């Protein structure tokens, strides 16, 4: 990115990084969401967790594991790849398509909880809802996210939110997980702290 030349000398901008959730916090937040799901779904009956790649998938698996630990119920977990349903395909080079992997009993008539790491514009969830309607007919659909950073562009809200993080548009939120990135952490990059 080329910046316009500074009119007068100014201290170099340091991109600010702020840790929002450390590893222990991530673990606590996942536990809390698992409890909330059990609470709101009468013990996770007829419920299916579908992770949205990339980081929604390990999150869905962790939630299922925690639910199983807390209440001894097995919640089926699947993967819902939304690549072919994105509304920004033409803005990028062709994106690789990932596998969609639904639980063997399917999703028809079930309560599907979509799981993703960050809720931002809502466009990913919109794509996921479209993808979902092409692969089956759930009784209801809910949404669980680790972080909600606001700035919705569509009328979409999450049913389970690990942490609300008020952000500026110029900032970015980055979630890393042990399964995909080696460590659990949520960081906030950029912003006005020049």
């Amino acid at each position, binding site marked *: 990115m080329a910046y316009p030349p500074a009119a007068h000398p100014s201290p170099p901008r340091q991109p600010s990084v702020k840790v929002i959730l450390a590893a222990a916090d991530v673990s606590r937040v996942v536990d809390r969401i698992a409890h909330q799901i059990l609470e709101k779904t009468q013990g996770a009956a007829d419920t299916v967790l579908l992770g949205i790649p990339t980081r929604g998938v390990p999150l869905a698996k962790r939630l299922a594991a925690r639910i199983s630990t807390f209440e001894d119920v097995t919640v089926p977990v699947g993967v819902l790849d939304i690549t072919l349903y994105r509304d920004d395909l033409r803005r990028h080079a062709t994106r690789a*398509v990932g*596998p969609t992997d639904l639980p063997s009993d399917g999703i028809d008539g079930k309560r599907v909880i979509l799981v993703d790491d960050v809720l931002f514009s809502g466009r990913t969830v919109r794509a996921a809802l479209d993808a979902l309607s092409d692969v089956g007919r759930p009784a209801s659909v809910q949404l669980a996210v680790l972080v909600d950073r606001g700035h919705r562009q569509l009328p979409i809200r999450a049913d389970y939110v690990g942490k609300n993080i008020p952000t500026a548009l110029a900032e970015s939120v980055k979630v890393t997980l042990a399964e995909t990135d080696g460590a659990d952490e949520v960081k906030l990059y950029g912003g006005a702290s020049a």
Partner: protein
Amino acid sequence: MIRHLLSGADLDAATATQILDTAAEMATVAGREVKKLPALRGRTVVNLFYEDSTRTRISFEAAAKRLSADVINFSAKGSSVAKGESLKDTALTLQAMGADAVVVRHPASGAPHRLANWVDGSVVNAGDGTHEHPTQALLDAYTMRSRLGRIAGLHVAVVGDVLHSRVARSNVLLLSTLGAKVTLVGPPTLIPVDIPQALAPGTDVSYDLDTVLPGVDVVMMLRVQRERMNDSYFPSAREYARRYGLDGPRMRRLPEHAIVMHPGPMNRGMEITPEVADSPRSTIVEQVANGVSVRMAVLYLLLGGNNR
């Protein structure tokens, strides 16, 4: 990212593997209630067919429609093409219609390359003369991978009229890119002697089918036109079938796991007997189904993003 698919040589191993992987995901759509994906909504795919090939055209049409593209079929019969309009003028017409991709089947080798000079959209070679048919090679590779689990290290015999076969050319190129070993088998009149140098250095040539069969994982039978005997490529259909046709006894010389492929349409009794074509080793019906998935993957790869 490639812009056109004109030849098997356009694909490196990574891109070819990406197409096969994507095709595997596309295949799951065939089993769903809603056999449709929105990825190419608003895109226009033109099927420009200068030769009758209902099966290939339908396969591309199904692939494009499953990806929600608009499909225009432009066939040589009953159109301005039949009235002698040049390929270039046709290309300019398609360009004006906003074709994002042109799938072209043409009796002249290289016609898709020429077309690619005259349209902004992607050109997919659906078979040009005696040159290539790259999506056929991709679906063949896909079929081998799903039956045998891999492509690298496989030994594939391609049997028949290699000289006039676009399927053979594309298969030799793609299979060698993906690490398989190819042996071309047929009468010397139908196998160009310089094919290893021309296409892939590791390719072997044999004139004796029986010695090749026990060592292969895949035997791919090519369609052999009976009319070739009029040009003295072989003396008679009967002699051809006896020396190079795949019948039951020959099939039993294959290793237990080996599969039999044919790009279709078959000349039963010429290059393949009904016993072989209908045996469990035969992948001929699967190849047709896999064709749609592979062509979906190709269209998505070419049109699914902003690849300009």
